């Protein structure tokens, strides 16, 4: 007889999907900031598509959250209630709402810029207009950064996610968000203006490869942080590396998420098909890392 109250599994597959989607949304929004020296037209096109991808992912993530909570007003309550700002979830919910509002505003502003560019007015008029564009873009970057790492803070406060308590967990979540963002944008990079497509795709490809390497390094140190750090964490590490989680780690995270993208990007750096394969594999690996943090332990 096991006795009760039995600890119920508080969160299920919906929340895992939510943590992945929020990573894509925040990562996609941050990627344009990692691409220096972009000319105006390319920047607008890149921002335009990244904003739409981010908005789409955020909309699905919010819908998933509402389905999990049961009723839309429950999500609304989390956004409007300010009595416990020490709660990671409370702060995270407000960032989600802010990110959504900023993304809508960003899409609208970018629509105006695209229309202006088509009319031959490609530069921003100085003064208030420029200030509004820069402020919205900067605020969006800040909220995206917050949303990229907030799930790991949330998980660190629970007893079911010991992996989230290591020093590099936050950095790993940021890396997975950026990686999913870069890969998502690479998938639509053929929509960029033809004259600059090769240059931007080249930068994104290099960024993807760098993030894959960074992810591998962070994973290594995540494992080392667990090793020898108490019996409970060693049990988790053993389960992931040699137990029930081994197929997920070695199959999805290492092989699919790290080895395949790295090999494809190095072997065939210019082909559209190879970019799509590398991007899809990298997204699968990064999403699985987020899932493992959520589920293992």
């Amino acid at each position, binding site marked *: 007889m*096991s006795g*009760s*109250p039995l600890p119920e599994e*508080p*969160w299920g597959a919906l929340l895992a999907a939510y943590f992945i989607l929020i990573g894509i949304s925040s990562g996609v929004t941050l990627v344009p900031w990692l691409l220096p020296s972009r000319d105006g037209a390319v920047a607008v096109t890149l921002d335009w598509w990244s904003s739409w991808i981010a908005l789409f992912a955020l909309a699905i993530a919010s819908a998933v959250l509402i389905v999990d909570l049961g009723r839309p007003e429950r999500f609304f309550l*989390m956004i409007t209630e300010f009595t416990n700002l020490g709660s*990671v*979830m409370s702060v995270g919910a407000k960032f989600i709402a802010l990110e959504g509002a900023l993304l809508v505003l960003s899409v609208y502003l970018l629509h105006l810029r695209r229309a202006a560019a088509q009319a031959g007015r490609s530069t921003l008029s100085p003064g208030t207009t420029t200030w509004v564009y820069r402020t919205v873009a900067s605020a969006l970057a800040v909220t995206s950064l917050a949303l990229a790492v907030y799930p790991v803070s*949330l998980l660190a406060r629970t*007893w079911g996610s010991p992996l989230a308590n290591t020093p590099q967990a936050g950095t790993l979540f940021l890396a997975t968000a950026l990686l999913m963002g870069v890969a998502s944008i690479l998938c639509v990079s053929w929509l960029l203006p033809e004259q600059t497509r090769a240059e931007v795709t080249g930068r994104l490809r290099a960024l993807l490869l760098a993030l894959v390497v960074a992810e591998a390094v962070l994973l290594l140190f995540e494992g080392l942080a667990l090793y020898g750090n108490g019996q409970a964490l060693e049990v988790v590490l053993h389960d992931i590396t040699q137990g029930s989680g081994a197929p997920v780690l070695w199959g999805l995270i290492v092989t699919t998420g790290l080895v395949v993208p790295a090999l494809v990007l190095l072997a065939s750096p210019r082909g559209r098909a190879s970019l799509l394969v590398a991007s899809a594999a990298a997204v699968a690996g990064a999403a699985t890392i987020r899932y493992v943090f959520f589920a293992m332990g």
Partner: protein
Amino acid sequence: MARFGMLIDLRTCIGCHACSVACKSEFDVPLGVFRDSVKYVEEDIYQMARRHFIPVLCNHCEDAPCLKACPTGAITRLENGEVVIDKGDCNLNRFCMAACPYGAIYVDPEENVAQKCTFCEHRTSEGADPACVEACPTHCRIFGDLDDPDSEIAQRAADNPTTVWKEEAGTNPRVLYIDERGALPLIADQGVQMDMSPGAEQVREARRT
């Protein structure tokens, strides 16, 4: 102001579940979920086998992780220290459940809100004991003001070595146990009820031979 707590003497718990039944009846707790129950923990093997009865409930922690986790402020602490959930403000995000190391919070399947033990706040605010305490046939549960040196709970706690469940979690529970046989650490998070602590297998093997 009183600082309410509960002392559970594991030496005298007989695992009769009268406390669980009283709690179910008091709050009309739905089937399949519990605010208060008794874990049965088995230790060792035949000839040396032992079964421990360990009543478990919300610990009304001084540093309650559920209270800090709740994003809507639905979980509050009363002046007497009891941690309660205002179901009107609960949006069932389940963060409190994930944060509680004791698995003491459950989803009420009928009302679709998080629920847990309240130390029978409606009774204790009028000077009565919680339903589980009143129902216990061996008086293994004692409820009262931990800060009142004349209270039975304070005196029993002073006269006996007490411990808490999962002290390492740092939550400072207000449910104290007299646990002479060291049964509390044998409770695993789920399913359990074998002694899986390091060295236990060697002890079993030594006793077999």
